[in-house]
């Protein structure tokens, strides 16, 4: 039984990694490619590490496998965020079928500042304490 579960986890994890690679190759855009690689590859490695934890079944090794899982869950979003931000700054082209780019009108590419569109003189003069209910 445990062999069956281990084999299923291994094959599923490897297939998810392959799915991430196919997505990286097929999708049209930097951001869509990142959307494929971060999630699918992280899930694949998590399944493989679960299989290795079930294979060894000792306390130290299970802890090590879960350390890898936690590490990947913590670092994959951070790395994706940083690369996506850098790619947007560099000016990588979006897919031609992109419907809306909300960041383009609010963002200054020279100073890397983001505006909310509410920076009027009235809002600058208004004290936030006046509007607080308490």
């Amino acid at each position, binding site marked *: 039984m445990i062999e069956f579960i281990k084999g299923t986890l291994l094959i599923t994890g490897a297939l998810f*990694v*392959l799915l991430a690679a196919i997505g*990286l190759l097929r999708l049209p855009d930097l951001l869509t*490619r990142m959307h494929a690689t971060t999630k699918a590859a992280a899930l694949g490695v998590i399944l493989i590490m679960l299989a*290795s934890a079930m294979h060894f079944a*000792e306390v130290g090794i299970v802890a090590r496998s879960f350390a890898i899982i936690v590490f990947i869950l913590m670092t994959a979003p951070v*790395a994706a965020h940083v690369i996506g931000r*850098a790619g947007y700054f560099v000016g990588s082209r979006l897919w031609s079928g992109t419907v809306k780019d909300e960041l383009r009108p609010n963002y200054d590419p020279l100073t890397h500042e983001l505006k909310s569109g509410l920076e009027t003189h009235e809002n600058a003069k208004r004290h936030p304490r006046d509007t607080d209910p308490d």
Partner: protein
Amino acid sequence: MDTVILISQVIMGLALVLTFVRVVRGPSLPDRVVALELFSTTVVGMVGVYAIQSGVASFLDAAIVIALMGFLAAIGFARFLERGGPRDD
């Protein structure tokens, strides 16, 4: 179990080949950085499978180190891109 391990290794090797195609073709430098990060993640998975195959649990330490190196490389590349050094896609 040996057959299952072999199948998963073949699948992940195919994933490495597809990722390498994107590293070679990738139109811009951020695409290549994303592909290299997928490389490191795939290698972590392969090391995990190899730890199961060989029965040596110390390979998981190597997997931790590879994951750490991939993360730091991604952060470094992104900082380099954002500071805007000279580059040639």
